[in-house]
């Protein structure tokens, strides 16, 4: 069995599972944000159901927090009431984080575990070697009531990377390249498995940026078998004992793609699908109104350090505005302690507390009609970040920082 099949089988108490099987599996951890959790918790209340284990759930108020209207303030107030009543841990601004990142940061998504989060980018946690998948509010409510969920066992598509990565080519670029190659629904319902020497050389957080975007290829989950680097990363933060799982050497997979990264440049996704990709040199010179470095995809400490290394001692162009938002309150604090916040502010960037706001067009960076944003986030759908006639381009944090300085699309070597 593959690593994905082994994790599902163990959580379904079955000796083996095959792609296409429908199973009922135990869930180790779930969570929800301020968009989905009122629906989720409202369903429990409506049906008079108890929470199976409040320690396996948390809620973050992050998308519309701090409240950006009376309407969202009212929603956030209802979340405080419901989490209190159901005794579910609730993280608010100042202590909070983008939920997909928080589960990892607080050591509640661990190798070998089965994770179902109330957000499509919950698949990010698969970068640590767990089965992690995103779901909607009613699915999360059923998990809260029973501790279990039904799954269709996905087929596995393996991506074996070979070659040596060129400078400024990151995990984000590998993933954009993959999505561009297989298409926006190219891994429909499948498990994406990443392996090979270039993956081994990536920082753990770059791997998380990759698995974050599995949903952008339609996948159920993405997974990277845990190595020494992963285990060192999670050992420091793990809140539960865990057992890493590895696939069998002779596991059957449905497809394998071998991808030579030797000639790969930083990748840009043009509007308005993440699969609409080009190499950086093919689209240099495009001008933007806004640059956004952050989101659950690229708001990690690794991303903040890369952006700061390029912005240090430089000023951002007067042609655009720049927003930098770390994924979590802890990363925000660490940016201050390491002096990165000073670098961002001196360069002329807006440096904000964690929120999903600009990525999802909720607040803190909404685009007007005709405006164009270069973003390290994961989606560039029509109207994703604001007006339906605004445009979003996707890239890695180094390209975003360099473009912020030059005022037009470029790489760090062009400065």
């Amino acid at each position, binding site marked *: 069995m593959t690593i994905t099949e082994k994790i599902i089988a163990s959580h379904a108490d079955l000796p083996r599972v095959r792609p296409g099987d*429908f199973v009922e599996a135990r869930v180790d951890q779930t969570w929800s944000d301020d*968009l*989905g959790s*009122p*629906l989720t918790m*409202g*369903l429990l209340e*409506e*049906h*008079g*159901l*108890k929470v199976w284990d409040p320690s396996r759930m948390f809620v973050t108020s992050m998308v*519309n927090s701090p409240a950006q*209207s009376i*309407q*969202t303030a*009212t*929603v956030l107030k209802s979340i405080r009431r419901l989490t209190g009543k159901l005794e579910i841990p609730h993280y608010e601004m100042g202590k909070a984080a983008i939920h997909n990142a928080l589960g990892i940061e607080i050591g509640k998504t661990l190798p070998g575990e089965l994770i179902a989060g*109330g*957000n*499509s980018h*919950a698949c990010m946690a698969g970068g640590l070697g767990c089965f992690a998948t*995103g*779901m*909607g*509010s*009613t*699915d999360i*409510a*059923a998990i809260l*009531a*029973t501790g279990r969920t*039904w799954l269709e066992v996905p087929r596995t598509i393996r991506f074996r990377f070979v070659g040596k990565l060129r400078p400024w080519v990151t995990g984000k670029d590998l993933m954009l390249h993959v999505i561009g190659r297989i298409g*926006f*629904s190219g891994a*429909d*319902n499948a498990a994406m498995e990443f392996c090979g020497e270039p993956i081994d050389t990536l920082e753990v957080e770059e791997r998380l940026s990759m698995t974050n975007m599995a*949903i952008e290829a*339609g996948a*159920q989950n993405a997974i990277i078998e845990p190595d020494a680097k992963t285990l060192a990363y999670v050992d420091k933060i793990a809140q539960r004992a865990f057992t890493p799982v590895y696939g069998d050497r002779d596991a059957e997979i449905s497809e394998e793609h071998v991808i030579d990264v030797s000639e790969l440049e930083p990748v840009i996704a043009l509007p308005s*699908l993440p699969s609409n990709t080009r190499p950086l040199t093919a689209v240099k010179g495009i001008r933007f109104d806004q640059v956004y470095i952050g989101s659950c995809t690229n708001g990690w400490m690794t991303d903040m350090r890369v952006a700061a290394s390029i912005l240090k001692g430089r000023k951002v162009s007067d042609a655009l505005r720049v927003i930098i938002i770390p994924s979590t309150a802890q990363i925000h604090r660490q940016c201050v302690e390491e002096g990165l916040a000073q670098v961002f502010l001196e360069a002329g960037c807006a440096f904000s507390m964690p929120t999903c706001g600009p990525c*999802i*067009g*909720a607040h803190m960076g909404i685009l007007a009609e005709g405006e164009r944003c270069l973003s390290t986030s994961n*989606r560039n*759908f*029509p*109207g*994703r970040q604001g007006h*339906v006639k605004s445009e979003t381009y996707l890239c890695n944090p180094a390209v975003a920082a360099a473009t912020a300085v030059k005022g037009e699309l470029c790489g760090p070597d062009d400065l």
Partner: protein
Amino acid sequence: MWHQGRAWFIGADIDTDQIMPTPYLALRTNEDLGRHVLSGNDPAWPGRFAPGDVLFAGANFGCGSSREHAPRGLKGAGIACVVAPSFARIFFRNAINIGLPLLILPEVQTGAGGEPVWVDSESGQVRRSAEGPVLQGAKPPGIIRDILAHGGLMPYVKARSAAVSTV
């Protein structure tokens, strides 16, 4: 069971941000969400729909965000069934979970919009005219039929799990 409704047609890769744009995610009822459904694709969509209508989409309908507000808005606008060659996985689960039938039909359907159509989501069949040929789609797997038969996931969970404790 055959259902007759009016047909509407939309393209491929319609994501849930277009089905229910972010500014409306604080709305709570299906009916309120329904007043804005698909406005991220075309602001004229919500005004076209009436109870019993059937939406025909291209492949990969409901891709992107896990927001359950998207199928809830379709249901709230009166959509009785969505027919497409494929649905994104999370949207598919969400729709079934709230009792909105989906029908997978390999061929993409197009038309002017507003014309009568017949669908049977249980057997997976579609007819474009009263006497016309039957187009055979996929019959949903057992667990999907079970959840729909209970009216959605929460009643299904309550009915079959003795382990669920109620307050």
